[in-house]
């Protein structure tokens, strides 16, 4: 079927072809560069700590541990140990436990969290991220909180 008008002139066709393939070439080269520049970071699934380090904690005191690249905090309460990721949900500053007030405090913008990690005062928009603690013999196993769905 011969059409009256050509869709593209030969020159435009060649130029578009060239531009298209040049873009392909550079995106092929760009792909490993992007992969290199953004290394993958995996949050740990679980962290195992020796019980010995945390045996002599007073009630309502806290100790730090490392959760991958972030700081974690273990709080001793009457019912046992609670673990949180000690990073403020506002802007990533590290929070600290103040035993006198029995609250977590973020020094950056005066954010306060209560003993269950729930944000009570200041700018933080959400509670501290909670982690599941399990004491198995010689080890404390700290895991990510997994939400169970109703079947």
């Amino acid at each position, binding site marked *: 079927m011969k059409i009256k*008008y050509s*869709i*593209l002139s030969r*020159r*435009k066709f*060649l130029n*578009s*072809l*060239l*531009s*298209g*393939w*040049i*873009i*392909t*070439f550079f*995106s*092929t080269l760009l*792909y490993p560069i992007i992969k290199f520049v953004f290394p993958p970071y995996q949050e740990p699934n679980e962290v195992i700590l020796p019980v010995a380090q945390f045996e002599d904690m007073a009630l309502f005191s806290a100790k730090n541990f490392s959760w991958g690249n972030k700081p974690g905090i273990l709080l001793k309460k009457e019912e046992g140990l609670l673990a949180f990721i000690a990073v403020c949900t506002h802007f990533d500053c590290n929070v600290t436990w103040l035993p006198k007030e029995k609250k977590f405090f973020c020094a950056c913008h005066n954010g306060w969290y209560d003993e269950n990690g729930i944000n009570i005062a200041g700018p933080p928009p959400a509670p501290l991220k909670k982690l599941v603690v399990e004491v198995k013999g010689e080890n404390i196993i700290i895991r990510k909180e997994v939400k169970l769905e109703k079947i």
Partner: protein
Amino acid sequence: MKSKFILVKIILIILIISLPVFTLDSISQSKNTKNYEIKPSPKNIRESTALYVYLLWIWLVIFVLIYIFILKIKEVDRMYKMKFESYKNRDRLINTK
């Protein structure tokens, strides 16, 4: 934007560009199993297939680009020979004297 069938041209160009990029993306999902020997012997363990595919793809793109550039060179040389508009004022010979 006065030319006709502008939509068709845009779709053509997008097709030409996107097909190779998407095929590459799906290949990249396969595992990269490059291992490194750091000890005195300089041998490396063989890479997985994905790397060979990437290499072949790069060479394919290079050869296609070279072909298109050869066509472009022929076009531009032709234009120069017949003293086309943009070449009007250029001398064709250098005088070394």
